[in-house]
């Protein structure tokens, strides 16, 4: 056991709280950015931050303290009991990919928007309304 692991064991609750807190904080920050910032890029950044927060939350939920990697290997057949849940990780990977795609698409749209409107202020992008 490394020193870090010991530290980790000692402050397990604290760290759990920290991880959860961070993820929720990320979500809130992301939300804030999406809802309050006027610049399109900032909004997209907010969206990404929010996604990141959610992903972190998901991964954190799947984590079992002191668990092993969710790999069945020879000699480690009964690892299933102490294994970290693999599903959230798999899902988060997918979600990250999707988030990436969305971000890319968003940025390309922003470029298009900027070309047409010469502004990236979301308040001015309301020619379609009512």
């Amino acid at each position, binding site marked *: 056991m490394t020193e870090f692991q010991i530290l980790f064991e000692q402050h397990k609750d604290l760290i759990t709280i920290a991880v959860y807190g961070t993820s929720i904080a990320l979500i809130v920050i992301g939300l804030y950015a999406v809802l309050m910032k006027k610049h399109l890029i900032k909004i997209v950044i907010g969206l990404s931050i929010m996604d990141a927060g959610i992903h972190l939350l998901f991964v954190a939920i799947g984590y079992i303290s002191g668990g092993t990697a969710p790999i069945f290997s020879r000699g480690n057949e009964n690892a299933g009991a102490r294994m970290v849940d693999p599903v959230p990780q798999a899902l988060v990977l997918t*979600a990250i990919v999707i988030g990436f795609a969305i971000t890319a698409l968003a940025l390309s749209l922003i470029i*298009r928007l900027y070309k047409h409107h010469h502004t990236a202020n979301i308040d001015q992008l309301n020619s379609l309304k009512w």
Partner: protein
Amino acid sequence: MVITPVHYIIAPLIAAFAIPLLTKIHKDAARVVPGIVLFYNVIVSFVLMKHIREHGMISEVLAGWQAPWGINLVVTPFTGYLASMVSILGFIIWLYGFRFKRTLKGGEIKFYEILQMMMIAGSIGIIITGDIFNLFVFIEIVGISAFSLTAFYRSRDGAEAGFKYLLIGGFASAFLLLGIIIIYTQTGSLNMAQIAERMPDVPQQMKIIALIFFLVALGIEAEMFPLNGWAPDAYSQAPTPTSATFAAVVSVAGVYALIRVVYTMFDVEGVNNYLMIMGFVSMLIAEIAAISQKNLKRMLAYSSMGQIGLVLIAFGIGSKLAVFGALFLMLNHGVIKSLLFMTGSYFIYNTEDKKIKSLNGIYKKLPFVSFLFGLGALALIGFPPFSGFWSKFYILMSAADEKYIFLIIGILLVTVIELTYYLRVVGRIFFAKEEGEPASHKPSVNAIIAMSSLALFIIVIGVYPDLIMPHIQSAAEALLDKSNYIQQILSLN
């Protein structure tokens, strides 16, 4: 069984990725291949439906893992019905757009078809998947292709609409993921049947919070007020076949997702009332907004939102008759709204702007298209002898059975609003305008076939609804029979 549900998804996806390659071989491949694929999907639908009628529902397992652990595709009469509907409408929309897309440049048609294929594949995926996370993935597939298609015309408004859609779609995916997280922590499963089975053990508060996340996220897809800000923009800016696809395919998938979650996964009291109220509010607000629209496609978009509101009301009522009515209405709405978008697109084509004002006397230019539009408008409002009448009739009957007096009156009053703006347009179309130059864009043969087949459907079903009612009936039964669904999935292994 040679044909399995997975063909539904695989065929369009393969086609989507093969199109760029095939265009190298022949430049028309991008236009033809989707048609073949979608027609194949139609065949798949028929085969599967027949199979279901004979042998009961199908649960296909992907990648060898059995149901609770692996991803499974479920074709019940309910999902089969929706998937068939989506396939057939997708094919007709392709048929309609076959020549329309010729006007696009070679490269663009490729992207268009890819995105369109992905959207339809994703929608069918949403409908037939039995896995909640898979649902999420398909929603995202639909979402990304839909965002792109909205902004397909690289115009200023298209980009704007696309961005708004994307922003809100991002929220949807985030909340959906949150909901899935909560559900997963509580039930430890992602299979809908298993989640449903384990749901009674979940703490009430958790259940409700998860449900709320689902409701909000899927509400966005199902165009529920106040989550539907994207819809009018997206509908009005997307290419017309895409608008039709939104109305006929994507919204169906969205409503399906919402209903599947609410009906099958959760057993929470009050959600029916919620659906009913929010459905009514969506309908009301959408129709109110539609009444003074100046843009035809935007008006149709609001009208779509209104119709989806009515569907939600019917699902909220929740009796068998109501579900039957709702499913019937989804079908009717898909058909009729596609028809309206198709015909409306020809109007727009000929008037150069999308304004309703410039439709005056267009009957002289495009008699047949105007005729079909009028028919569609009347059918959508719910006039007999068109199919729209029966769906509305059954929904109201079911509401009456539950003694929702004010709901009935409210729906009917909102219908009056709907009627007002539709008939304004119809009135304009059939105006006796003095002068009129011949139409510059006559509808092409394939478009006429597509539109006529839809119109024929409307009339035939309107006069003789018994043709399709048994299917819808079994679909409604399948949706409501939750325990059977769970048992079948978990024991069909």
